[in-house]
Protein backbone atom coordinates (compact mmCIF):
# COMPACT_ATOMS: atom_id res chain seq x y z
CA UNK A 1 0.00 0.00 0.00
CA UNK A 2 1.07 3.53 -0.71
CA UNK A 3 0.39 4.64 2.85
CA UNK A 4 3.67 3.20 4.08
CA UNK A 5 5.78 4.86 1.42
CA UNK A 6 6.23 8.31 2.95
CA UNK A 7 9.78 9.50 2.56
CA UNK A 8 11.32 11.17 5.60
CA UNK A 9 12.37 14.74 4.82
CA UNK A 10 16.00 15.80 5.38
CA UNK A 11 16.60 16.66 9.04
CA UNK A 12 17.44 20.37 8.59
CA UNK A 13 13.92 20.90 7.26
CA UNK A 14 12.32 19.66 10.44
CA UNK A 15 14.37 21.99 12.66
CA UNK A 16 12.63 25.30 11.82
CA UNK A 17 9.95 24.68 9.24
CA UNK A 18 7.93 27.64 7.95
CA UNK A 19 4.84 25.48 8.10
CA UNK A 20 4.38 22.60 10.52
CA UNK A 21 1.20 20.55 10.47
CA UNK A 22 0.61 17.50 12.64
CA UNK A 23 -2.40 15.22 12.94
CA UNK A 24 -4.79 17.70 11.37
CA UNK A 25 -8.40 16.50 11.24
CA UNK A 26 -11.50 18.28 10.01
CA UNK A 27 -15.05 17.12 9.41
CA UNK A 28 -17.99 18.92 7.89
CA UNK A 29 -21.04 17.40 9.57
CA UNK A 30 -20.58 13.67 8.90
CA UNK A 31 -18.07 14.08 6.12
CA UNK A 32 -14.49 13.50 7.23
CA UNK A 33 -12.43 15.72 4.94
CA UNK A 34 -9.07 15.54 6.71
CA UNK A 35 -8.11 12.37 8.60
CA UNK A 36 -4.75 13.24 10.07
CA UNK A 37 -2.58 15.40 7.83
CA UNK A 38 1.14 15.87 8.56
CA UNK A 39 3.21 18.36 6.58
CA UNK A 40 6.48 20.21 7.12
CA UNK A 41 7.51 22.93 4.70
CA UNK A 42 11.07 24.28 4.80
CA UNK A 43 11.65 28.02 4.70
CA UNK A 44 12.10 29.48 1.25
CA UNK A 45 10.88 26.39 -0.54
CA UNK A 46 7.94 25.75 -2.84
CA UNK A 47 5.72 22.98 -1.58
CA UNK A 48 2.97 21.56 -3.77
CA UNK A 49 -0.08 19.89 -2.32
CA UNK A 50 -1.44 17.68 -5.03
CA UNK A 51 -4.84 16.07 -5.08
CA UNK A 52 -8.05 15.51 -6.97
CA UNK A 53 -11.10 17.72 -6.59
CA UNK A 54 -12.53 17.32 -3.12
CA UNK A 55 -9.36 15.81 -1.67
CA UNK A 56 -9.26 18.50 1.04
CA UNK A 57 -6.52 20.78 -0.36
CA UNK A 58 -8.54 23.95 0.11
CA UNK A 59 -9.54 22.88 3.63
CA UNK A 60 -5.85 22.58 4.57
CA UNK A 61 -5.12 26.04 3.15
CA UNK A 62 -8.13 27.57 4.93
CA UNK A 63 -7.03 26.13 8.26
CA UNK A 64 -3.47 27.38 7.75
CA UNK A 65 -4.70 30.86 6.84
CA UNK A 66 -6.98 31.03 9.95
CA UNK A 67 -10.23 31.00 7.95
CA UNK A 68 -11.28 27.62 9.37
CA UNK A 69 -10.68 25.89 12.67
CA UNK A 70 -9.36 22.33 12.71
CA UNK A 71 -11.16 19.73 14.84
CA UNK A 72 -7.93 18.26 16.19
CA UNK A 73 -4.23 18.45 15.47
CA UNK A 74 -1.74 21.29 15.50
CA UNK A 75 -0.71 23.69 12.79
CA UNK A 76 2.03 26.30 13.11
CA UNK A 77 2.85 28.90 10.48
CA UNK A 78 6.04 30.94 10.79
CA UNK A 79 6.28 29.55 14.35
CA UNK A 80 2.79 30.71 15.39
CA UNK A 81 -0.10 28.42 16.28
CA UNK A 82 -3.04 29.01 13.91
CA UNK A 83 -5.61 28.45 16.66
CA UNK A 84 -4.13 30.44 19.55
CA UNK A 85 -1.99 33.02 17.74
CA UNK A 86 -4.22 33.75 14.75
CA UNK A 87 -3.35 37.46 14.70
CA UNK A 88 0.41 36.68 14.46
CA UNK A 89 -0.27 34.13 11.75
CA UNK A 90 -2.19 36.73 9.73
CA UNK A 91 0.79 39.08 10.02
CA UNK A 92 3.00 36.34 8.54
CA UNK A 93 0.94 35.11 5.61
CA UNK A 94 -0.97 36.02 2.56
CA UNK A 95 -3.63 33.98 0.84
CA UNK A 96 -4.50 33.83 -2.81
CA UNK A 97 -7.71 31.87 -2.96
CA UNK A 98 -9.13 29.76 -5.74
CA UNK A 99 -11.13 32.66 -7.13
CA UNK A 100 -9.19 35.84 -7.77
CA UNK A 101 -9.72 37.93 -4.65
CA UNK A 102 -9.66 41.29 -6.38
CA UNK A 103 -12.07 44.20 -6.30
CA UNK A 104 -13.55 44.42 -9.79
CA UNK A 105 -14.91 47.93 -9.41
CA UNK A 106 -11.57 49.41 -8.38
CA UNK A 107 -8.61 49.83 -10.73
CA UNK A 108 -5.57 47.58 -10.44
CA UNK A 109 -3.59 50.29 -8.70
CA UNK A 110 -6.43 51.05 -6.29
CA UNK A 111 -6.56 47.37 -5.35
CA UNK A 112 -2.86 47.36 -4.49
CA UNK A 113 -3.09 50.63 -2.55
CA UNK A 114 -6.07 49.24 -0.62
CA UNK A 115 -4.13 46.18 0.54
CA UNK A 116 -1.02 48.25 1.36
CA UNK A 117 -3.16 50.56 3.52
CA UNK A 118 -4.81 47.61 5.27
CA UNK A 119 -1.34 46.22 6.02
CA UNK A 120 -0.56 49.61 7.58
CA UNK A 121 2.44 50.26 5.34
CA UNK A 122 3.98 53.60 4.51
CA UNK A 123 3.98 54.88 0.92
CA UNK A 124 1.20 52.64 -0.39
CA UNK A 125 1.40 54.46 -3.74
CA UNK A 126 5.08 53.61 -4.24
CA UNK A 127 4.49 49.98 -3.25
CA UNK A 128 1.62 49.77 -5.75
CA UNK A 129 3.66 51.26 -8.60
CA UNK A 130 6.58 48.89 -7.93
CA UNK A 131 4.32 45.84 -8.03
CA UNK A 132 2.51 47.04 -11.14
CA UNK A 133 5.87 47.24 -12.88
CA UNK A 134 7.02 43.87 -11.57
CA UNK A 135 3.86 42.14 -12.79
CA UNK A 136 3.66 44.00 -16.13
CA UNK A 137 0.43 45.74 -15.23
CA UNK A 138 1.59 49.36 -15.48
CA UNK A 139 -0.33 49.98 -18.70
CA UNK A 140 -3.53 48.67 -17.17
CA UNK A 141 -2.97 50.30 -13.77
CA UNK A 142 -5.81 52.79 -13.95
CA UNK A 143 -8.30 50.51 -15.69
CA UNK A 144 -11.05 48.83 -13.73
CA UNK A 145 -10.19 45.22 -12.89
CA UNK A 146 -13.50 44.13 -14.45
CA UNK A 147 -11.86 44.77 -17.84
CA UNK A 148 -8.79 42.57 -17.08
CA UNK A 149 -8.16 39.19 -18.68
CA UNK A 150 -8.00 36.08 -16.50
CA UNK A 151 -4.21 36.09 -16.50
CA UNK A 152 -3.96 39.78 -15.60
CA UNK A 153 -6.44 39.26 -12.76
CA UNK A 154 -4.37 36.39 -11.38
CA UNK A 155 -1.18 38.44 -11.62
CA UNK A 156 -2.85 41.29 -9.78
CA UNK A 157 -4.16 38.81 -7.22
CA UNK A 158 -0.65 37.46 -6.59
CA UNK A 159 0.80 40.98 -6.56
CA UNK A 160 -1.71 41.89 -3.85
CA UNK A 161 -0.54 38.88 -1.87
CA UNK A 162 3.06 40.06 -1.90
CA UNK A 163 2.41 43.44 -0.31
CA UNK A 164 4.23 43.72 2.99
CA UNK A 165 6.50 40.80 2.05
CA UNK A 166 4.80 38.11 4.12
CA UNK A 167 7.26 35.24 4.75
CA UNK A 168 4.66 32.59 3.87
CA UNK A 169 2.36 32.67 0.83
CA UNK A 170 -0.55 30.30 0.19
CA UNK A 171 -1.67 29.86 -3.40
CA UNK A 172 -4.82 27.78 -3.76
CA UNK A 173 -4.99 26.44 -7.34
CA UNK A 174 -3.30 29.55 -8.74
CA UNK A 175 -3.63 28.55 -12.39
CA UNK A 176 -7.05 26.89 -12.52
CA UNK A 177 -8.99 28.34 -15.44
CA UNK A 178 -6.04 30.15 -16.99
CA UNK A 179 -4.83 29.77 -20.56
CA UNK A 180 -1.37 28.26 -21.12
CA UNK A 181 0.43 31.60 -21.48
CA UNK A 182 -1.12 32.99 -18.33
CA UNK A 183 -0.12 29.82 -16.50
CA UNK A 184 3.49 30.28 -17.49
CA UNK A 185 3.37 33.89 -16.34
CA UNK A 186 2.04 32.80 -12.96
CA UNK A 187 4.70 30.07 -12.70
CA UNK A 188 7.37 32.67 -13.37
CA UNK A 189 5.96 34.89 -10.62
CA UNK A 190 5.92 31.99 -8.14
CA UNK A 191 9.53 31.05 -8.96
CA UNK A 192 10.66 34.63 -8.40
CA UNK A 193 8.88 34.64 -5.07
CA UNK A 194 10.74 31.60 -3.81
CA UNK A 195 14.03 32.99 -5.11
CA UNK A 196 13.38 35.99 -2.88
CA UNK A 197 13.19 33.69 0.16
CA UNK A 198 9.41 33.43 0.50
CA UNK A 199 7.94 30.09 1.47
CA UNK A 200 5.20 29.07 -0.95
CA UNK A 201 2.57 26.43 -0.35
CA UNK A 202 0.51 25.86 -3.44
CA UNK A 203 -2.28 23.46 -4.16
CA UNK A 204 -2.92 22.15 -7.62
CA UNK A 205 -4.61 19.39 -9.51
CA UNK A 206 -2.20 19.74 -12.43
CA UNK A 207 0.68 17.32 -12.19
CA UNK A 208 2.90 19.29 -14.56
CA UNK A 209 2.47 22.37 -12.39
CA UNK A 210 3.85 20.56 -9.36
CA UNK A 211 6.61 19.13 -11.55
CA UNK A 212 7.56 22.59 -12.86
CA UNK A 213 7.53 24.48 -9.59
CA UNK A 214 7.78 22.44 -6.46
CA UNK A 215 10.83 21.55 -4.38
CA UNK A 216 8.69 19.01 -2.58
CA UNK A 217 5.39 17.44 -3.52
CA UNK A 218 2.82 15.83 -1.25
CA UNK A 219 -0.20 13.94 -2.48
CA UNK A 220 -3.36 14.38 -0.45
CA UNK A 221 -5.77 11.51 -0.95
CA UNK A 222 -8.90 10.67 1.04
CA UNK A 223 -7.91 13.05 3.81
CA UNK A 224 -4.34 11.81 4.30
CA UNK A 225 -0.92 12.59 2.87
CA UNK A 226 -0.06 9.36 1.09
CA UNK A 227 3.37 10.39 -0.21
CA UNK A 228 5.66 13.33 0.39
CA UNK A 229 9.01 13.89 -1.27
CA UNK A 230 10.99 15.55 -4.04
CA UNK A 231 10.07 14.85 -7.63
CA UNK A 232 13.14 12.60 -7.85
CA UNK A 233 12.11 10.67 -4.75
CA UNK A 234 8.54 10.30 -6.01
CA UNK A 235 9.80 8.89 -9.31
CA UNK A 236 11.81 6.26 -7.46
CA UNK A 237 8.64 4.91 -5.89
CA UNK A 238 7.91 3.28 -9.23
CA UNK A 239 10.03 0.60 -10.90
CA UNK A 240 13.07 1.93 -12.80
CA UNK A 241 12.32 3.33 -16.24
CA UNK A 242 12.36 0.91 -19.09
CA UNK A 243 13.92 1.97 -22.33
CA UNK A 244 11.41 2.05 -25.14
CA UNK A 245 11.53 3.60 -28.54
CA UNK A 246 8.74 6.16 -28.82
CA UNK A 247 8.19 8.63 -31.58
CA UNK A 248 8.22 12.02 -29.78
CA UNK A 249 5.21 13.98 -30.95
CA UNK A 250 4.87 17.62 -29.92
CA UNK A 251 2.06 18.08 -27.41
CA UNK A 252 -0.85 20.30 -28.29
CA UNK A 253 0.50 22.76 -25.71
CA UNK A 254 3.85 22.90 -27.58
CA UNK A 255 2.01 23.57 -30.82
CA UNK A 256 -0.23 26.21 -29.28
CA UNK A 257 2.62 28.06 -27.61
CA UNK A 258 4.77 27.97 -30.74
CA UNK A 259 1.96 29.34 -32.88
CA UNK A 260 0.92 32.16 -30.56
CA UNK A 261 4.34 32.69 -28.99
CA UNK A 262 5.42 35.37 -31.47
CA UNK A 263 2.52 37.66 -30.66
CA UNK A 264 3.29 41.26 -29.81
CA UNK A 265 0.39 41.93 -27.47
CA UNK A 266 1.34 44.63 -25.00
CA UNK A 267 0.04 42.43 -22.23
CA UNK A 268 3.12 40.26 -22.76
CA UNK A 269 6.02 41.21 -20.53
Amino acid at each position, binding site marked *: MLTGMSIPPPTDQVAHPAIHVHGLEKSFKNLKVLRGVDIDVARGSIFALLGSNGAGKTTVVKILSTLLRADTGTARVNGFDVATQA*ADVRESISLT*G*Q*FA*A*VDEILSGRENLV*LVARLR*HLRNPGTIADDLLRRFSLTDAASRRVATYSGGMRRRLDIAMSLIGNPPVVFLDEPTTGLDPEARIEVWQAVKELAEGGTTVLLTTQYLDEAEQLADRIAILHEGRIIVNGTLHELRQLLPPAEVEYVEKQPTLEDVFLTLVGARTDKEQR
Partner: protein
Amino acid sequence: MTKHFLGDTAVLLGRSLRHISRSPDTIITTAIMPIAFMLLFVYVFGGAIQTGSDSYVNYLLPGILVITIASGISYTAFRLFLDMQGGIFERFQSMPIARSSVLWAHVLTSLVANLTSLVVVVLVALLMGFRTGAGLLGWLAVAGILVLFTLALTWIAVVPGLTAKSVDGASAFSYPLIFLPFISSAFVPTETMPGPVRAFAEHQPVTSIVNALRDLFTQQPVDSDIWTALAWCGGILVVAYVFADITYRRRIS
Protein backbone atom coordinates in the same frame (compact mmCIF):
# COMPACT_ATOMS: atom_id res chain seq x y z
CA MET B 1 -5.63 44.34 16.38
CA THR B 2 -8.30 46.67 17.72
CA LYS B 3 -5.86 49.55 17.72
CA HIS B 4 -6.29 49.57 13.94
CA PHE B 5 -10.10 49.50 14.08
CA LEU B 6 -10.66 53.15 13.17
CA GLY B 7 -7.96 53.25 10.50
CA ASP B 8 -9.02 49.97 8.89
CA THR B 9 -12.68 50.99 8.93
CA ALA B 10 -11.78 54.30 7.28
CA VAL B 11 -9.80 52.54 4.52
CA LEU B 12 -12.60 50.06 3.85
CA LEU B 13 -15.22 52.82 4.01
CA GLY B 14 -13.24 54.67 1.34
CA ARG B 15 -13.36 51.52 -0.77
CA SER B 16 -17.14 51.09 -0.62
CA LEU B 17 -17.79 54.80 -1.08
CA ARG B 18 -15.73 54.55 -4.24
CA HIS B 19 -17.99 51.69 -5.34
CA ILE B 20 -21.02 53.92 -4.84
CA SER B 21 -19.47 56.88 -6.62
CA ARG B 22 -18.84 54.56 -9.61
CA SER B 23 -22.40 53.29 -9.67
CA PRO B 24 -24.49 56.27 -8.53
CA ASP B 25 -27.49 54.43 -9.97
CA THR B 26 -27.84 52.69 -6.59
CA ILE B 27 -28.63 56.05 -5.00
CA ILE B 28 -30.98 57.01 -7.84
CA THR B 29 -32.75 53.64 -7.72
CA THR B 30 -33.16 54.00 -3.97
CA ALA B 31 -34.75 57.42 -4.41
CA ILE B 32 -36.91 56.64 -7.46
CA MET B 33 -39.48 54.34 -5.86
CA PRO B 34 -40.27 56.65 -2.91
CA ILE B 35 -40.49 59.59 -5.32
CA ALA B 36 -42.89 57.60 -7.52
CA PHE B 37 -45.01 56.80 -4.46
CA MET B 38 -44.96 60.46 -3.51
CA LEU B 39 -46.10 61.57 -6.99
CA LEU B 40 -48.78 58.88 -7.09
CA PHE B 41 -50.21 59.63 -3.68
CA VAL B 42 -50.02 63.41 -3.91
CA TYR B 43 -51.34 63.81 -7.47
CA VAL B 44 -53.62 60.74 -7.86
CA PHE B 45 -54.93 59.46 -4.52
CA GLY B 46 -54.17 62.46 -2.34
CA GLY B 47 -57.17 64.54 -3.38
CA ALA B 48 -59.53 61.89 -2.01
CA ILE B 49 -57.64 61.34 1.26
CA GLN B 50 -58.78 63.34 4.29
CA THR B 51 -55.90 63.80 6.69
CA GLY B 52 -56.90 66.94 8.48
CA SER B 53 -53.69 68.51 7.14
CA ASP B 54 -53.97 71.38 4.67
CA SER B 55 -51.28 69.95 2.37
CA TYR B 56 -51.08 66.22 1.64
CA VAL B 57 -47.40 66.34 0.68
CA ASN B 58 -46.65 67.80 4.11
CA TYR B 59 -48.57 64.90 5.65
CA LEU B 60 -46.94 62.29 3.41
CA LEU B 61 -43.23 63.14 3.44
CA PRO B 62 -42.30 61.49 6.78
CA GLY B 63 -43.66 58.13 5.57
CA ILE B 64 -41.88 58.53 2.23
CA LEU B 65 -38.60 59.09 4.08
CA VAL B 66 -39.14 55.84 5.99
CA ILE B 67 -39.79 53.98 2.70
CA THR B 68 -36.62 55.49 1.22
CA ILE B 69 -34.53 54.01 4.03
CA ALA B 70 -36.32 50.65 3.86
CA SER B 71 -35.53 50.32 0.15
CA GLY B 72 -32.00 51.74 0.44
CA ILE B 73 -30.67 49.30 3.01
CA SER B 74 -31.15 46.33 0.68
CA TYR B 75 -28.03 47.56 -1.16
CA THR B 76 -26.02 46.87 1.99
CA ALA B 77 -27.11 43.25 1.87
CA PHE B 78 -26.33 43.23 -1.86
CA ARG B 79 -22.82 44.68 -1.50
CA LEU B 80 -21.98 42.44 1.44
CA PHE B 81 -23.22 39.41 -0.50
CA LEU B 82 -20.98 40.30 -3.48
CA ASP B 83 -17.96 40.59 -1.17
CA MET B 84 -18.72 37.17 0.31
CA GLN B 85 -19.11 35.66 -3.18
CA GLY B 86 -15.88 36.99 -4.60
CA GLY B 87 -12.70 36.03 -2.80
CA ILE B 88 -12.14 39.52 -1.41
CA PHE B 89 -13.93 38.78 1.87
CA GLU B 90 -11.59 35.85 2.55
CA ARG B 91 -8.61 37.99 1.64
CA PHE B 92 -9.66 40.57 4.24
CA GLN B 93 -10.24 37.84 6.82
CA SER B 94 -6.76 36.38 6.29
CA MET B 95 -5.14 39.80 6.71
CA PRO B 96 -4.02 41.41 9.96
CA ILE B 97 -6.92 43.88 10.16
CA ALA B 98 -9.56 44.55 12.80
CA ARG B 99 -12.20 42.02 11.79
CA SER B 100 -15.28 44.02 12.72
CA SER B 101 -14.10 46.90 10.51
CA VAL B 102 -15.24 44.93 7.44
CA LEU B 103 -18.86 45.12 8.64
CA TRP B 104 -18.66 48.66 10.00
CA ALA B 105 -17.40 49.94 6.65
CA HIS B 106 -20.50 48.54 4.95
CA VAL B 107 -22.81 49.96 7.63
CA LEU B 108 -21.30 53.45 7.41
CA THR B 109 -21.48 53.28 3.61
CA SER B 110 -25.19 52.52 3.95
CA LEU B 111 -25.55 55.59 6.14
CA VAL B 112 -23.86 57.87 3.60
CA ALA B 113 -25.82 56.41 0.65
CA ASN B 114 -29.17 56.58 2.43
CA LEU B 115 -28.64 60.14 3.64
CA THR B 116 -27.83 61.14 0.05
CA SER B 117 -31.04 59.48 -1.20
CA LEU B 118 -33.03 61.17 1.58
CA VAL B 119 -31.69 64.57 0.53
CA VAL B 120 -32.77 63.85 -3.07
CA VAL B 121 -36.28 62.87 -1.91
CA VAL B 122 -36.61 65.98 0.30
CA LEU B 123 -35.55 68.20 -2.61
CA VAL B 124 -38.22 66.65 -4.84
CA ALA B 125 -40.78 67.11 -2.05
CA LEU B 126 -39.83 70.81 -1.83
CA LEU B 127 -40.47 71.11 -5.57
CA MET B 128 -43.86 69.47 -5.03
CA GLY B 129 -44.81 72.09 -2.46
CA PHE B 130 -43.55 70.59 0.79
CA ARG B 131 -43.08 73.36 3.35
CA THR B 132 -42.00 73.28 6.97
CA GLY B 133 -41.40 75.93 9.57
CA ALA B 134 -38.97 73.65 11.41
CA GLY B 135 -35.81 75.41 12.52
CA LEU B 136 -32.29 74.07 12.75
CA LEU B 137 -33.02 72.13 15.95
CA GLY B 138 -36.10 70.58 14.39
CA TRP B 139 -34.15 69.47 11.31
CA LEU B 140 -31.36 68.11 13.51
CA ALA B 141 -33.91 66.07 15.45
CA VAL B 142 -35.39 64.77 12.17
CA ALA B 143 -31.90 63.87 10.92
CA GLY B 144 -31.09 62.16 14.23
CA ILE B 145 -34.17 59.92 14.05
CA LEU B 146 -33.49 59.07 10.39
CA VAL B 147 -29.83 58.22 11.12
CA LEU B 148 -30.81 55.98 14.02
CA PHE B 149 -33.50 54.27 11.90
CA THR B 150 -31.04 53.77 9.02
CA LEU B 151 -28.46 52.20 11.35
CA ALA B 152 -31.10 49.91 12.88
CA LEU B 153 -32.36 48.67 9.48
CA THR B 154 -28.82 48.40 8.07
CA TRP B 155 -27.78 46.03 10.84
CA ILE B 156 -30.84 43.95 9.96
CA ALA B 157 -29.65 43.96 6.33
CA VAL B 158 -26.22 42.65 7.38
CA VAL B 159 -27.71 39.27 8.37
CA PRO B 160 -29.12 38.30 4.92
CA GLY B 161 -26.01 39.85 3.34
CA LEU B 162 -23.86 37.35 5.25
CA THR B 163 -26.10 34.31 4.91
CA ALA B 164 -27.91 34.59 1.56
CA LYS B 165 -27.34 31.95 -1.10
CA SER B 166 -28.27 34.20 -4.03
CA VAL B 167 -28.45 37.89 -4.92
CA ASP B 168 -32.26 37.77 -4.88
CA GLY B 169 -32.25 36.21 -1.45
CA ALA B 170 -29.94 38.92 -0.19
CA SER B 171 -32.36 41.73 -1.02
CA ALA B 172 -35.76 40.01 -0.69
CA PHE B 173 -35.92 40.67 3.06
CA SER B 174 -36.51 44.37 2.46
CA TYR B 175 -39.93 43.94 0.77
CA PRO B 176 -41.87 43.56 4.03
CA LEU B 177 -39.97 46.57 5.40
CA ILE B 178 -41.07 48.65 2.40
CA PHE B 179 -44.64 47.42 2.88
CA LEU B 180 -44.82 48.18 6.61
CA PRO B 181 -45.43 51.97 6.18
CA PHE B 182 -48.65 51.23 4.28
CA ILE B 183 -50.17 49.78 7.46
CA SER B 184 -49.26 52.79 9.55
CA SER B 185 -50.10 56.46 9.85
CA ALA B 186 -47.76 57.21 6.91
CA PHE B 187 -50.43 57.56 4.18
CA VAL B 188 -53.74 57.90 6.04
CA PRO B 189 -54.70 58.57 9.66
CA THR B 190 -55.07 55.30 11.57
CA GLU B 191 -58.50 56.34 12.91
CA THR B 192 -60.16 55.24 9.66
CA MET B 193 -58.87 51.66 9.85
CA PRO B 194 -60.95 48.74 11.20
CA GLY B 195 -60.14 47.57 14.76
CA PRO B 196 -57.43 44.90 14.45
CA VAL B 197 -55.64 46.70 11.59
CA ARG B 198 -55.75 49.93 13.54
CA ALA B 199 -54.38 48.19 16.63
CA PHE B 200 -51.47 46.82 14.57
CA ALA B 201 -50.88 50.13 12.82
CA GLU B 202 -50.75 52.11 16.02
CA HIS B 203 -48.35 49.75 17.75
CA GLN B 204 -45.79 49.13 15.05
CA PRO B 205 -42.59 51.19 14.86
CA VAL B 206 -43.31 53.08 11.63
CA THR B 207 -46.33 54.94 13.08
CA SER B 208 -44.44 56.35 16.04
CA ILE B 209 -41.47 57.32 13.82
CA VAL B 210 -43.73 58.95 11.22
CA ASN B 211 -45.74 60.79 13.88
CA ALA B 212 -42.57 62.06 15.56
CA LEU B 213 -41.17 63.32 12.23
CA ARG B 214 -44.51 64.92 11.37
CA ASP B 215 -44.66 66.72 14.73
CA LEU B 216 -41.13 68.01 14.22
CA PHE B 217 -41.91 69.26 10.68
CA THR B 218 -45.16 70.95 11.74
CA GLN B 219 -43.58 72.34 14.92
CA GLN B 220 -46.11 70.63 17.13
CA PRO B 221 -44.89 69.84 20.61
CA VAL B 222 -43.40 66.35 20.33
CA ASP B 223 -45.31 64.13 22.72
CA SER B 224 -44.59 60.57 23.74
CA ASP B 225 -44.32 59.56 20.05
CA ILE B 226 -40.69 60.65 19.83
CA TRP B 227 -39.71 58.52 22.85
CA THR B 228 -41.62 55.55 21.45
CA ALA B 229 -39.87 56.11 18.12
CA LEU B 230 -36.44 56.35 19.74
CA ALA B 231 -37.14 53.26 21.84
CA TRP B 232 -38.14 51.30 18.71
CA CYS B 233 -35.06 52.44 16.76
CA GLY B 234 -32.71 51.80 19.68
CA GLY B 235 -34.28 48.43 20.42
CA ILE B 236 -34.16 47.25 16.79
CA LEU B 237 -30.59 48.54 16.53
CA VAL B 238 -29.37 46.58 19.55
CA VAL B 239 -31.17 43.33 18.64
CA ALA B 240 -30.12 43.53 14.97
CA TYR B 241 -26.51 44.32 15.92
CA VAL B 242 -26.31 41.33 18.26
CA PHE B 243 -27.79 39.02 15.60
CA ALA B 244 -25.47 40.39 12.91
CA ASP B 245 -22.47 39.97 15.22
CA ILE B 246 -23.38 36.35 16.02
CA THR B 247 -23.92 35.60 12.31
CA TYR B 248 -20.60 37.21 11.42
CA ARG B 249 -18.68 35.27 14.06
CA ARG B 250 -20.25 32.07 12.80
CA ARG B 251 -19.25 32.91 9.23
CA ILE B 252 -15.62 33.67 10.02
CA SER B 253 -14.77 30.90 12.50
